[in-house]
């Protein structure tokens, strides 16, 4: 069982990197929207796993996408941040439920799942575009990019999520 989930995560990692760099980085909706679907990796990653390993993996995921898209370490920094903040966000969204041994994301309500994903995306995009543009003069540009790209990312993540979700037994 352990090796199974390990294998699943490796496959997910590789597939998400390839899909991100070969498909979604080239979309350019309206000339500037490139949704970042690889955030799903952090959404799907098991909850009860070692946290240090999770943070390391998130960094690795971000940096591999950076290699392909010549974006310095922007993806790494933002993915790292949401990986670190994930427990806090989960506590905010799921509340007491998180304490139960049998807690699973698939057992929570649809609204909670969407809120969790939305918060991940918002934090990620805020860090990403702030670092990318790197000036407060262009604050409006940052907001515009965060909201537009965030909306498309959320939509695509939900679609992907319902396509590839692990079925409830």
């Amino acid at each position, binding site marked *: 069982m352990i090796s199974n989930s390990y294998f699943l995560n490796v496959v997910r990692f590789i597939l998400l990197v390839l899909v991100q760099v070969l498909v979604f980085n080239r979309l350019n909706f309206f000339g500037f929207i490139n949704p970042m679907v690889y955030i799903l990796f952090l959404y799907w990653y098991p909850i009860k796993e070692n946290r240090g390993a999770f943070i390391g993996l998130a960094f690795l995921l971000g940096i591999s996408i950076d290699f*392909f898209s010549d974006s310095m370490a922007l993806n790494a920094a933002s993915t790292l941040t949401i990986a670190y903040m994930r427990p806090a966000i989960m506590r905010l969204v799921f509340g007491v439920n998180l304490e139960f041994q049998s807690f699973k994301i698939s057992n929570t309500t649809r609204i909670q799942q969407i809120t969790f994903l939305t918060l991940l995306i918002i934090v990620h995009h805020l860090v990403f575009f702030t670092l990318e543009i790197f000036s407060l003069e262009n604050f409006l540009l940052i907001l515009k990019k965060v909201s537009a790209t965030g909306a498309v990312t959320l939509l695509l993540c939900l679609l992907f999520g319902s396509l590839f979700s692990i079925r409830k037994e």
Partner: protein
Amino acid sequence: MQQIINFIIRYKNFLLYIFLMIISMTFTIQSHSYHQSRFFNSSNWLTGNILETSNNVSTYFGLDAENQKLLNENKRLRDLLFNMGETDTTALDSIQRRYTIATGRVIKNSFAQPRNYLTIDKGEKDSIKGDMGVITSKGILGIIENTSNHFATVQSILNERSNINAKIKNTDHFGSLVWDMKRYDVVQLIDIPRLVKLTVGDTIVTGGMSSIFPEGIPVGTIRKFDLNSSNSFYSIDVALFNDMTNIKNVYIVNNELREEIKELENQTRTDDQ
């Protein structure tokens, strides 16, 4: 001592986060003020090969259009050639040659970020080096930034750090070509003095001050122009000839005399000090 160890164990995730964050911030901020990082670029072996494989598949869908483009360019060049009275290339002795041209294919394009880089499928094995100019049949594209054995990255003119010497065609008024990060089909020409007469639609070409591009490579046409805040220079919006979203075949221009020019400039600078 015990307390320090306890502290480290207790906050190990936070410390790991801070450590990795510092690494990524260093790479990011360093390249804000200086060049693209030596290691974090898509010209390395693994990313280059994956991007090339994907590109090999997608190029098939545009072969017709690309052939037509190349035919049109050949036609234009033949027109020029026949009307100059030289129908052969033998006149171009290797000693007279100042620029050598190589061809390449874009395997990764980007135009939606503030700092855009392209990746091409030629590298050091094809004697591509940093700071060579890259153009297409329609106009200027960018400058080679990093190279590996088989690939190279190109700093696009759609890059906030791009700064290329350009001038108004048929005059000697030159300025710098920069990008304000807003539209992928418009770049800005700055530092043209206000006494110059401008009209919307004037052609902008590369200037002779650069040791990278030959003089007179087309850039675009004037879309609109304003005086800048100090009222002494124009800030001109230039609509590019190139469609930056659709670029396949490129030419890499090498100025054979560039080394000599650089050396001379460096020497002058050290003599000054």
